[in-house]
């Protein structure tokens, strides 16, 4: 009985699908449950779209993406990588949160296979000397975007509210460095991720800091709490800005009364103006598969997925899959993508990554910085209250 059970368990877990000769297996290790589930699901949608687009357009190869839920836990992420490897994955993508990406990409490095992500921004991730680690986004890109917009708007003093989580604290630290170096005044307000009432913090900002702008580094629930508190207390600031998950159509849809005039990082405006053929293909496929507008997580997922699929296909054709062909393909050229040019350096960081800043403008998400990609003028000074 026990033997039969074990063998059926093994069959379930280790059963290797017989792959087509030209079907490229890509492993996707993603949090679909647990604390990072929200982000993981968004990224997963983008990767799935990338696979669909690749399979419909490549002609020569198809990819098969095998997805394993890492349950937002590092050990399970490592196990997922190893299981995907056993199932024949040629490279890995996914990952959300530097705490999970760290060990998972370590595991991939040991297996000698590429790990491609957009979900971890910690600077240290790319300082480990890994050869197979790639990411299209990093903390610097986010910090630069906020700092760039602030320069354009000529803001001189800031209250910086940030979650003490790892990635948020990292971006906040970089922002503080940039602003302090520019001789601007920054007051820090770290908060524990579990808190829900931001009135005491906002009241301090209103009465003590009196900044020209309020900057937030957190997640959706934090933004909602902060802006709600700000609407009650109405501090006399000229602008309020934040990082990821903020300037999205979804936030407008869910919290229209909070979002107007808020700045946040965004890869694309909304309603999206999909100009290039690639952008149009993406948007159509996304709508068809998920029946909604693409958000930034989906876009990143799509870009990281497609970059990886193309590199794997290239290495497969060159017969260099096992001799570092995938990472060479990723490093050797510039890639034109939905989020602009992607250039990977030796450490696997995208040196060209700079986020755009967008502003919620009556239901639209308008890109307002940098100038060359702007779709509208920034409304300034303007806050939601």
């Amino acid at each position, binding site marked *: 009985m026990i033997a039969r059970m074990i063998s059926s368990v093994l069959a379930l877990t280790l059963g290797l699908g017989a792959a087509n000769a030209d079907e490229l297996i890509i492993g996707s290790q993603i949090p679909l*449950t*647990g*604390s990072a*589930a*929200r982000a993981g*699901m968004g990224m997963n949608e983008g990767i799935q779209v990338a696979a669909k687009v690749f399979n419909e357009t490549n002609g020569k190869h198809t990819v098969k993406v095998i997805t394993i839920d890492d349950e937002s836990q590092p050990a399970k992420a490592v196990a997922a990588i190893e299981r995907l490897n056993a199932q024949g994955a040629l490279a890995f993508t996914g990952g959300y949160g530097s705490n999970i990406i760290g060990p998972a990409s370590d595991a991939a490095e040991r297996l000698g296979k590429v790990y491609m992500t957009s979900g971890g921004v910690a600077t240290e991730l790319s300082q480990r000397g890994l050869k197979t680690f790639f990411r299209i986004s990093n903390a610097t890109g986010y910090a630069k975007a906020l700092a760039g917009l602030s320069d354009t708007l000529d803001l001189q003093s800031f209250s910086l509210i940030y979650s*003490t989580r790892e990635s948020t604290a990292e971006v906040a630290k970089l922002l503080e460095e940039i602003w302090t170096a520019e001789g601007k005044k920054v007051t820090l*307000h*770290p*908060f*524990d991720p*579990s*808190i*829900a*009432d*931001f*009135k*005491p*913090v906002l*009241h*301090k900002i209103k*009465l*003590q800091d009196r900044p020209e702008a309020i900057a937030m580094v957190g997640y*959706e*629930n934090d933004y*909602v*709490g902060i802006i*709600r508190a700000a*609407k*009650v*207390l*109405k501090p006399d600031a000229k602008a309020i800005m934040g990082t990821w998950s903020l300037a999205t159509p*979804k936030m407008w849809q*869910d*919290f*229209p*009364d909070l979002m107007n005039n808020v700045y946040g990082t965004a890869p694309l405006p909304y309603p999206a103006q999909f100009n290039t053929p690639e952008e149009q293909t993406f948007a159509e496929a996304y709508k068809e598969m998920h029946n909604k507008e693409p958000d930034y997580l989906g876009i990143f997922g799509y870009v990281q997925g497609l970059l990886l699929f193309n590199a794997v296909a290239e290495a497969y054709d060159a017969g260099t899959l096992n001799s570092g062909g995938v990472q060479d393909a990723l490093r050797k050229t510039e890639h034109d993508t939905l989020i602009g040019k992607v250039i990977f350096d030796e450490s696997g960081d995208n040196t060209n990554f700079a986020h755009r800043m967008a502003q919620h403008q009556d239901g639209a998400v308008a890109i307002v910085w940098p100038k060359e990609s702007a779709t509208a003028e920034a409304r300034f000074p303007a806050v939601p209250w």
Partner: protein
Amino acid sequence: MFDLVAQSVFSGLLAGAYYALIALGLALVFGTMRIINLAHGELVLLAGYIAYTAESRFGLDPLAALPAAIIIVALTSVIIYLLLTRIRVDREINSLILTFGIAIMLTNGILMIWSADIRSTTSGWYLDSIIIGDTLFAMNTEILFAVIGVLVVGAVWWWLSKSWYGRALRAVSSNRDAAKLMGIDPRTTEILSFAVAGLLASIAGIALYSGKVIEPSLGHSLTIKAFIITVLAGLGSVPGVLIGAVLIGVAESLTATLWSSALQGLVSMLLFLIVLLVMPSGLFGRTRRRG
């Protein structure tokens, strides 16, 4: 500075009354049956999601979702009780595992039904600000549920100490067999107490949805908060729940104002520890005596 501290204490008081709402259901079951319902936070969250569905699907006000929430949550709570009665040995510790298992099921069930997106009310009135004496700021929902919180604490206290059912419940909790001899059916009273705990969780869930942001993984931290307050209060003390909750609320908010919001948890936990070490049975707990 005075404005800052005044606002901070005010925010803390409001937060405290809201915490009391969250803790009360857990405290009731814990106080009367010595059962720690680790799924309590998930019950609160479930009510919050029912309010979300009522609002987003049917355009109802979150408070109007209360009847539906009460029916579903109280029923779930009673089912938890019925499962608990099937534990034969080591009830105190096994009830932990049983309710923890149920909590996992509820969390994952909520995730499947409502997805991982964050939800909160869009009804403007709840979030509009109210200003008292030009210096104290709050949202309508906070004032509303603080008042409800105090009233509910009063009502539960009255119910337990003055009404027939409340007395029966206390009789059952102190001596089941004696209560049986007095003609009280322990099962009925215990079912009732779980149903009332469900009702309290429903009110707390509406307060949660109309003032804060909900997401499926929130339940666990709600349970912990409720549990901390219940223990701080002292077993079975209803007024203690309100006072313990306010203590935590004010301590958190003053920490944010005078120090840093990142240290809120540190201060409230230290406060909790200090109170327990000085008063090992909580603020209003009965002490055991030998003799």
